[in-house]
């Protein structure tokens, strides 16, 4: 009986390792600096993680489907700039759907290249990272984009407002996470995403239209990016062209940290949310410990490598495994 309990604890650790690591980490930081678990600090971390988190939700689908999306950072800059520009031209009520439509077109284009032309997603989205950046600069003429009258617009609601005492960005993140979690785990589409990423050939042999499924994951990803862009624009009411620069790697880090395999076929929305929070709290914790903010670039890298290594090691059953 004792052994059984021990075994099941081990099994739980292996399965929920990321969650356990998260809790251990929180406790250590809380002891080191009590301000870390201050409710304002926690709320602040979640709120600043919301943009990254929303983007990571979409990328989770892409990664489970067996592809990558490195274009989300520059796509988010694009969305932010576009919605700010349109705000003054056609008003917020039209600017928001307009921006969503344009961002979804970018997602559809990527989905077309990866799904229907069967091009390598790493190359396509890496290229799009650069191309969309160029597109954004062309659109803005290289200028920062600002809303003219920042006092008299309801547009700040998505980034700065709150409902029932909860900041709206957190609310959007939570609702989207809940909704997409249902889509991924409960709908036929979600099941197909797992099948296509897990074994594309077997999916084909089961009559699943792989190209369409891959296409849809990029549509979803661009939808999430547009949402993130909306929050970003609404929070600052003005923006540089490079606001999303580098976020693609943080997003990928969060998704991998959550345990989605880069080979596709595994991962969940819940795990990605945990991955996002870990990343946010680690960066916050290190700031509170007095590390310069740019140290977080290095720390992010260390976290990604550790996460990938431990994930692979758990699968292989050993830490040391040279290429042979």
């Amino acid at each position, binding site marked *: 009986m004792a052994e059984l309990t021990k075994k099941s604890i081990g099994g739980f650790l292996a399965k929920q390792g990321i969650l356990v690591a998260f809790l251990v980490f929180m406790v250590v930081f809380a002891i080191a600096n009590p301000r870390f678990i201050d409710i304002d600090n926690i709320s602040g971390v979640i709120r600043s993680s919301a943009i990254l988190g929303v983007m990571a939700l979409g990328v989770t689908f892409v990664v489970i489907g067996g592809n990558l999306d490195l274009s989300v950072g520059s796509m988010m800059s694009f969305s932010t700039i576009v919605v700010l520009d349109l705000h003054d031209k056609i008003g917020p009520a039209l600017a928001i759907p307009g921006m969503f439509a344009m961002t979804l077109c970018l997602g559809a284009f990527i989905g077309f290249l990866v799904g229907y032309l069967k091009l390598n997603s790493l190359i396509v989205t890496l290229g799009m990272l650069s191309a969309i950046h160029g597109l954004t600069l062309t659109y803005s003429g290289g200028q920062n984009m600002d809303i003219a009258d920042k006092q008299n617009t309801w547009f700040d609601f998505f980034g700065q407002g709150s409902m029932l005492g909860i900041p709206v960005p957190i609310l959007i993140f939570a609702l989207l996470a809940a909704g997409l979690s249902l889509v991924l785990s409960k709908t*036929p589409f979600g*099941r*197909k995403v797992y099948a296509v990423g897990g*074994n594309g050939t077997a*999916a084909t042999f*089961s*009559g699943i239209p792989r190209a369409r499924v891959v296409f849809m994951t990029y549509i979803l990803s661009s939808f999430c990016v547009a949402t993130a862009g909306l929050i970003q624009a609404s929070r600052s009411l003005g923006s540089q062209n490079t606001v999303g620069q580098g976020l693609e790697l943080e997003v990928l880090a969060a998704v991998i940290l959550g345990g989605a395999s880069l080979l596709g076929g595994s991962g969940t929305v819940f795990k990605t949310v945990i991955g996002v929070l870990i990343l946010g709290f680690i960066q916050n914790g290190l700031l509170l410990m007095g590390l310069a903010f740019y140290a977080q670039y290095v720390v992010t890298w260390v976290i990604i490598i550790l996460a990938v290594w431990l994930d692979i090691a758990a699968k292989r059953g050993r830490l040391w495994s040279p290429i042979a």
Partner: protein
Amino acid sequence: MSTQTPALRLEGIVKTFPGVRALDGVSFSVMPGEVHALMGENGAGKSTLMKVLGGIYQPDEGQIFIAEDATVMSSPLQAKSKGVVFIHQELSLADELSVAENIYLGELPRKSLGRVDWEKLYAQTDDILKTLNVGFNARTKVGDLSIANQQMVEIARALTVEPRAVIFDEPTASLTDAEKVVLFEVIADLQSRDVGVIYISHRMEEIFKITDRISVLRDGQYRGTLNTKETNEEEVTQLMIGRKLDLSRNEMTHSLGPVALEVRNLSCGKLFENVSFTVREGEVVGFYGLVGAGRTEIAETIFGLREPSGGEILLDGEGVTVHSPADAIARGISLVPEDRKGQGLVLGMNCRDNMTLPQVDDMTAGPFVSDGAEIAIFDQYRDKLDIRTPGWRQMVGNLSGGNQQKIVIGKWLSMHPKVLIVDEPTRGIDVGSKSEIHNLIRELAAQGYAVIVISSEMPEVLHVSDRIVAMYAGKVTREFTAAEVTEDGLIQAISGL
């Protein structure tokens, strides 16, 4: 021979993987100058044993002796340095490099400053090639060689060291008869140099032609060694499968319905041409032929995975076009593919989700997949096919080959197809499951399914089929009824005679 020391001896090798005892105390030895056959069914543990011998796996228990020295094999390179060399079934050559570079890969002769000594490299290589009597030289690019010649390169690679033991893994799988003769000469030559040869093959006639002794594995256990001269095929088979597999001829016991599937002059480029046949409800039609005869390609065309270049497919007498598997599924055609792990299953998905995958769109309650409906289907086919799994949450990757195959069969039966195509239904699964699947195929026919069975195993085809279509090089050569077919006739038909 008994006074000699063995070139290679394995003692009580045990290797376990999660849930499987792949090797269970295997011992056997190879004498210098002996050709020793290692036989066993798929999954008997041959490849695991060879990986242990080659240093790819470490045994949990047991020891390896080379000329009676206990040796720990830590890597393939180390195994080679001890004189144990492998000729793999799947060639591991770099296509873009020359023959010489491939042979000395990782140990190219050097001059000062680490420069490659090309003169020496080519000279050494040509010396080895000369002993093999091949029609290419050290500078030939490997990618330009035929498969047989590439195999010769592998063998040449083995000869760069003074080998004590050379292991051939299914070496004749892709060789022509003439090339086989050359291979056997090479083996005889090794023999005369007092090298111990381990020869892994399923082909009885070769085994009886060139080996001295035969060792048999079954379910990871050593089952005995026979002197080739004193035994016969039957004894070896019995040792391999443990009991007699029922492979009696099929005798029809039920009447046939109307024609369910008819194929007229179907062609797909050069893969197969002008293929015509019919399958009636309640009938099992076996497709027999050599690998590459075009059988799988016909199945894939009917299932919408390939576009035909000509001809017609008729279902219930009506001409249909099938552009995708989804089309085929909608029209009641199901395909249990040849490669279970590559094409049939998503190994990282659980049993239930794999089984319901083709119909997941139809299993919804509102926008969501209905757990209840899925579990009901899984339970039904688990019971019907006697699938042994701890529960539907089990990842299919953790099941045995036989149970995995049943999941794939269940997946397609639950679609209630009119025409069920089964490609190599028992490849790589144990004897028990094999006969269960044979019975199942017969039962399905009795229930009125039109079934096509593609198999490379003659006994299997004879056992399950009502009719047999023989193919050779993309063409149907003959059709037999179960009553009239003879083994000789079948062999002639698939050899293009």
